[in-house]
């Protein structure tokens, strides 16, 4: 560690001199365009902004405006079609936030469901994704292509289709799992309704989310694995390090930024899970035990045209996600690796 760190310090003066020389050398050639620009009154500070303007306009229109609008609506009594038709409503300060945060259901079922399921999903997605990446790395070219296609197809299936497939698999009457369980004598012929119980319901949701999410992790980690210098691995092999040791001493430290990215993205995605819960039997509000933040906010706000409340929930969710990401980044990268 001392070597690379010390190097820039010692070489700094010479480097500075070098750039200084280069700048001096370039100056004559540089002058013409800069002078020309000066004629038109466009200085150095304006130029980057001028170049950024088109994308800033697009981003502003597509991201900033809705964001501001959501915050504004969250402070209004924006409910019912009348408010939608008028486009605005009475400002009521933080009443919507008060209402949302005071709801008993949020603290008793919604938040625990969301947090526990998200944590389980993130953990399993990253672990299984990494294992899949290690498998892919160790395969030959042909097998790797075949396996990659298989993994990609899990990713390519839209969430709606994927969810229906899992519902079919666990269908209490005709489902594959139910039939197998009945055949093995594990459940009575009348069938067991896996969707009714909170634990089994979310077990199916987690299975669905992880199945849909691990390919992204697998491919990202694989890309990282392929950047690890072969000499490093060879050297450690010569030193007698086994696969386990190599994984923890070489792969993990090298891929730490990759793991950070996939974990943060998975956290954000898994906190916002909606389709995979909403489409499940009972998931759209009739089973109150299985509401999560996504479905709860939809049922409580948009289903009832309470857009003020809905916007307040959206703002709270955004803030919570920002906090989680912030804390995560701080704890994982105290050393400033990212």
């Amino acid at each position, binding site marked *: 560690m001392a070597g690379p760190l010390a190097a820039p310090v010692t070489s700094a003066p010479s480097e500075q001199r070098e750039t200084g020389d280069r700048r001096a050398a370039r100056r004559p050639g540089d002058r013409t365009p800069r002078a020309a620009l000066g004629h038109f009154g466009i200085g150095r500070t304006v130029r980057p902004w001028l170049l950024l303007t088109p994308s800033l306009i697009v981003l502003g229109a597509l991201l900033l405006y809705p964001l501001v609008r959501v915050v504004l609506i969250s402070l209004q009594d924006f409910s019912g*079609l009348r408010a939608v*038709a008028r486009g605005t409503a009475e400002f009521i300060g933080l009443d919507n936030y008060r209402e949302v945060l005071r709801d008993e259901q949020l603290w008793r079922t919604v938040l625990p469901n969301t947090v526990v399921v998200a944590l389980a999903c993130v953990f399993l997605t990253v672990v299984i994704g990494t294992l899949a990446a290690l498998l892919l790395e160790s395969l030959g070219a042909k097998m790797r292509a075949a396996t990659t296609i298989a993994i990609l197809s899990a990713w390519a299936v839209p969430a709606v289709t994927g969810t229906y497939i899992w519902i079919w698999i666990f269908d209490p009457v005709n489902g594959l799992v139910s039939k197998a369980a009945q055949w093995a004598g594990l459940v009575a012929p009348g069938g067991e309704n896996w969707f009714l*119980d909170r634990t089994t319901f979310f077990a199916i949701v987690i299975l669905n989310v992880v199945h849909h999410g691990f390919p992204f992790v697998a491919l990202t980690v694989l890309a990282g694995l392929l950047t690890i210098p072969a000499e490093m691995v060879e050297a450690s092999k010569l030193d007698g390090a086994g696969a386990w040791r190599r994984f923890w001493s070489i792969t993990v430290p090298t891929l730490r930024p990759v793991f950070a990215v996939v974990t943060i993205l998975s956290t954000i995605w898994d906190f916002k899970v909606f389709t995979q819960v909403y489409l499940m039997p009972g998931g*759209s509000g009739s*089973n109150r035990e299985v509401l999560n933040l996504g479905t709860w906010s939809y049922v*409580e706000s948009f289903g009832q045209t309470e857009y003020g409340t809905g916007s307040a929930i959206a703002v709270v969710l955004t803030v919570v996600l920002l906090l989680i990401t912030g804390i995560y980044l701080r704890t994982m990268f105290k050393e400033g690796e990212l």
Partner: protein
Amino acid sequence: MRIRSQSRRLAAVALAATTALVIAGCGDGDSDTANNDTTNQSLTVWIMEGTNPDATPFFDKVKTAFKKDNNAELNIQFVPWSAAHDKFVTAVGGGETPDVAEVGTTWTPEFGEAGILTDLTDKVKGSAVADDLVDSLQTAGEVDGKLYGMPWYAGVRSVLYRTDVFEELGLKPPTTWDEWLTVAQAIKTAKPEMIAMPVAGDNEYGVYPFVWGAGGDIATLDGDKWTSKIDSADAKRGIQFYTDLALKHGLSSPAAATWKETDLRDNFGQGNVAMMISGSWTPKSIVEKAPALDGKIGAFPIPGEKSGLSPSFVGGSHLAVFEGSKNADLAWKFVEMMTTGEFANEWATQSSFFPGLKSLLDEATKQDDPLVAPFAEQMKDGGETVPVTPAYGKVQAKKTVPAMLQAILSGSKTVDQATADAAKEMTSEMQG
């Protein structure tokens, strides 16, 4: 140099093509106005998808007739039910509402109260059908005595059953709740592999007949305040009977606790179900998917607790004219054409629903069709409507009643607990 001139040529071609497209676009618009020189009128109409399996040929005929009578074009757009409410709300927000739209009867009060629909009261009073509207559909379309939706078609749920199973076991359609229970138990004993009478947890329209049949109410209006009565003694007795079919008598299946109406239909189609509460519009689609069941499906009105019928929800669609339509008079002409006379009848027949006019409904009642007559009887003698207030839409969106049912069926709450919780939630939503 060659490359350069080539790319320049390409650019020129692209530019020319773009210009041509733009000009063509303008030209199209111009010629449109030029052709319909006297009246350049057109109506945008939203129709819900799936009610009528052959909607396209039907609307082709409507378009031709409308053009002949009014020299105006119809632009019919089909909207799936599941996306319709969101689409209406978005359209209202963007000021892009259609001229006329099919609106579900439970949505009309919400839209009417918000001031986005045209008051049709005077138009209907001045027309030939002023006294001919089916009562439940008229009530459902009124807010403060003003009619915002013209009754178009309606449907009602009764009981569908397997005639072959009943014949084999020598059973007759029941006429009281006790008989119903006996019939279901006989089926369970003889055919344990079948679900005799599934109690679907995610289907509020399945439980209402038992609430009403026992003499209960969902909610009552006192002054201008709605109060839920789903926890009254009568309502509870009905709910108890319905859920006992599953929990005490084992006539349902654990699977049904999370079923929707579509799951009921699918399982009936697979031959797993002997009886179910279902709409007049389902047998057609069941037979389409399972031709083997053709001729094996019968229907009977929902039996009353001791006698008569248990009322069932009459749901359907209105046609509504939107505020902001530039052709309100033309729009009404279209509504009139669709809801009265030949087209109303044809639509009802094709879709297995009932027309929204008493005179046409009477004609339908006289039919002998075993899959039409029981539903017509139910509609005439046992039709009810859910509380007519925009607030009930909120109760439905919150799934208060399915949540109550599912909690009972999963065993997590008793009937007393579940109905008390549901009543509290419903009252607070409706008074909120």
